[in-house]
């Protein structure tokens, strides 16, 4: 199993910037590792800390939240509020003994297809290096 282990990473990304950026990576045929699954939301402000905790308790090895750059939010400031919550969630998962590097927030605009590919590559590498989430067994 160790040889074949592939990380399970959840990407929660906003419709206007990061999702569009990911689409752009697609139309530009920019290749990146497939080890991420996407849930689309309208704005990173929508990200309830519950979503992230739920993902980890379900055994996710990593979670990526990605939105618009600051000042670029389609809803003015949802990404600030989302980002602020990420700090809180990071400290929560640290407190339960999970590496906070498993949660990442990035800012990818609709024109940054190449950056999206780079972000996913980077997240997959970080999480692969950390290995399977210790919560995985509990989830099963």
């Amino acid at each position, binding site marked *: 199993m160790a040889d074949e282990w592939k990380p399970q990473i959840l990407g929660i990304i906003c419709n206007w910037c990061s999702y569009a950026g990911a689409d752009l990576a697609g139309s530009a045929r920019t290749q990146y590792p497939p080890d991420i699954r996407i849930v689309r939301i309208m704005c990173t402000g929508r990200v309830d800390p*519950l979503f992230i905790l739920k993902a980890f308790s379900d055994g996710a090895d990593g979670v990526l939240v990605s939105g*618009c750059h600051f000042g670029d939010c389609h809803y003015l400031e949802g990404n600030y*509020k989302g980002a602020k919550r990420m700090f809180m969630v990071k400290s929560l998962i640290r407190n339960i003994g999970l590496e906070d590097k498993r949660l990442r927030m990035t800012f990818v605009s609709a024109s940054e297809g190449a950056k999206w590919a780079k972000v996913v590559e980077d997240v997959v590498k970080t999480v692969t290096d950390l290995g399977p989430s210790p919560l995985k067994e509990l989830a099963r």
Partner: protein
Amino acid sequence: MAEKKTKKETAPKKKEATKAAAPAVKAAAPKAPATGKKEARVGVFICHCGTNIAGSIDINEVEAYAKTLPDVAFAANYQYVCSTPGQKIIADAIKDHNLTGTVVAACSPRLHEPTFRTATKEGGLNPFRFEMANIREQGSWVHMHDREGATEKAKDAIRIAVAKAALLEDLIPKSVPVEKAAIVVGAGVAGMQAALDLANAGIKTYLIEKTPSIGGRMSQLDKTFPTLDCSQCILTPKMVDVGRAENIELMTYTEVESVEGYIGNFDVTLRKKARGVLSMAEAEAMGISGGGCNGCGDCEPVCPVIKPNPFEMNMKPRKAIYIYHPQVVPLLYTVDFDSCIKCNLCVDVCGDKKAIDLEMKDELIKVKVGTAILALGYDMFPIEKKDEWGYMKYENVVNSLEFERLICASGPTGGHMVRPSDGQTPKKVAFLLCAGSRDNTGIGKPYCSRFCCMYSLKHAHQIYEKIPGVQSYLFYMDIRSFGKMYEEFYYRIQDEGAKFIRGRVANILEDPVTKNLIINAEDTLLNRPVRLEVDMVVLAAAVQPSSDTDRTRKLFGVSCSLDGWLLEAHPKLNPCGTTTAGVYVAGVCQGPKDIPDTVASAEGAASAASIPIHMGEVELEPYFAQCIEEKCAGCGMCVNLCPYQALALVEKEGRKVMEVTEAKCKGCGTCGGFCPGGAIWMQHFATPQIVAQIDAFLLGGVK
């Protein structure tokens, strides 16, 4: 996981498609919803998209897998699901298999969600019972050489989508009336054309310009390629039309201060900068009969303050009370309060007209419009950053816009082509193309500025016209003469004797005595170095977004590309629209364009912006927040989080609960992401739906 939500009176009819036991392994411990629950029956339609998807994903395997998923009642694959027969498969399956929701696994929802919502509706379902699995842009296209990985990802994407589709509910889009007015920001040729088109279509149009006059960059140009029309001659009739059009309310020296609202109902606050001068209409309104500025110009000579005129690229002086050039529209003087010393000489000479008010203050004006067009234009790239070419260091190195003024009859030299250092007529002139464009050094711009090749050819032609015996040299990388009659124009300039040297200029040095310039370059066709002494150098500098593009686009919620140009909704399918409904882009602010393309894009934007206005009402996506009142503790945290003031606490049955004003809610979900009691139901992105997606990904599996 699916909670029963309380419905507001306005909420759509109750049709709970909640589904508890989606994942086989373990659900997230919620109890099954109460009653009235209908069994979810989801249809999955997998698109080959020719080989776009099928080339990297095993469609049959994915389809077979989809059939094993909980709640899936039907699965099929088709070559092109977006085609008419493809859509019919969806509609038929909904009826034949009594489906409660649909999932199409194909391209991005940003592309075809509307198509498949319509197909779902055709089948008799509410269109919001559709969910898309993106297996192309975020599947086959990004894992082209990993068939196994892409196939697994597609299966998961479908499982995630099915989990959501099983929980989707009927939603009714909200129709809102559209204000029968539009705003156009920027009054260069793009903004003017767009405003004229809108006005001619019977729409009240506010045309906003930050400088004192309309006309933009085009009014600074001498001739236009390839027809050699005089730029002012073809522009001024349009400027006059704009000034006269009944439906256009022209507001120069005005900037956008803030924008609120949404398509159909934008509330725009404008800052009318203190101009220090009253128009005749304003004077009339203030009871100064026969007063106001009539453009006589008596004030200008008496003004003791001398400043450079930016319209003349700072090569000609102006006073603290000024007009940019003789053809300004509106013909109205402006006081530059940054340099005015308030000596009142102008006020005295203006006399009974009482047009000048040196105590004038900025004014905020509110307008309500249905749609908006951004035509924000461009600035020249500060080419002094490429210091090897000596701009701002050597007097006889000018940029192309300065050249336009130097050769223009209304310019600082009256159209006599002279070089700046000594006023002598140059006999050898070099043009450097791609100055700062197509530059990957990190100093210049990586893109092609698109019109410099053509105007440099035109410049070469103009000096042949004006200076007998002159020799021009064009240092170029490629000549991009792509437009109608452009290539023919290129041949013509070659025939006129211009010398074309293919190669980038390494550096330019100045002879300190003669002020001549020595160019060091490489002729890459002859493969040898070139050293050339010329009298004058013209840099065809790159263009970049105008200085306040970034500020203005953020006010309207429009995205930009990496270079700062405004981002269209889709470069081919929706080139004038943006991701903000009701906001459109025109002209160079979207990316470099020559005048014909600029005017064409302006007409496109005007047409697009007039559609919602003529329709009279638009549908808003019903992604509103709803309050689940029995869960709401009335803490009011959400009220402050909402950027649109859409939420408020109200008294109901003796306690405080939150209430949503749907017309103000844009559906970002920031309140829903925060509510500590889980009392906010975000329609179409409800917590149980998203949690079901997460569970489906991590815990879900076969029936």
